[in-house]
């Protein structure tokens, strides 16, 4: 029980996922919500790597999923920050309540 194994890493990644969910639910600032999303994506990556290491050590599928998720997360963060900066230019605020004006 004390020696770290698959279950310990799953515990860490589940805790990290729900920390991210908590941040996403409580924050009203768009940048901090983006940070929470990064935490959630990282917990998923950790899960993939742990399953790859402990359950299918001969294969590399989890590793490739992680690589592609990291690439997509980078694209997503860059796009989100572009949208946030554009919102700040028009509203001088990045509160999530202002984001509904984006549709006009």
């Amino acid at each position, binding site marked *: 029980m004390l020696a770290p194994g698959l279950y310990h890493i799953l515990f860490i990644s589940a805790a990290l996922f729900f920390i991210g969910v908590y941040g996403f639910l*409580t924050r009203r600032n768009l940048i901090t919500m983006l940070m929470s999303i990064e935490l959630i994506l990282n917990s998923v990556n950790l899960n993939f790597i742990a399953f790859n290491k402990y359950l299918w050590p001969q294969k590399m599928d989890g590793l490739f999923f992680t690589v592609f998720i990291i690439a997509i997360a980078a694209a997503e963060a860059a*796009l989100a920050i572009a949208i946030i900066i554009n919102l700040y230019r028009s509203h001088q605020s990045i509160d999530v309540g202002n984001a509904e004006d984006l549709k006009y």
Partner: protein
Amino acid sequence: MNGSTVIFYLLAALTLVNGVLSVSTRQIFRAAIYLLFTLIGIAGLYFWLNYQFIAAVQVVVYVGGIVVLIIFSIFLTQQAGEKLQKQKIGRKLFAALAVFCGFGLTIIQVYQHAFYEPAETGVPVSVAAIGQKMLSMNDEGYALPFEVVSMLLLAAMIGCIVIAMKEKKITDNEPGTSSPDHTGKE
């Protein structure tokens, strides 16, 4: 309890403590720094799991790229020393309750499930093997997702430029003949 175990628990504590601080602090710049340490802790966990390539990618992309991007956008959008507004206690309580319930359910499910762990342990994956598999075109290769991701990154780059571009001021000059320093007023 050997050294590897101690390192694992230290990395886990670093990751989780900084994650909690990152979502609970009211100063947005500190939140970004705590997020940085969380990502470093996860990179350390990848090193601990013997996936050096993923750990290096994590450090380069997340710690070197995304966190720096977030810090720059904080500089662009926040006034110095301004704290985030306090949230209603009811919303916090509701969020904490939902998160605890979800976490408890997930952990119960995980610990009740018996994973079949194979006895043999794999060799550490070399970077050469990763590269060959990523670009191989046979059934187990990842050439198609690789190309799709490259197209996605290109599209995201163009999209960022288009979204963040300032709108041009409407001038009454002809678009072909206007020059930036000649306003054309008579």
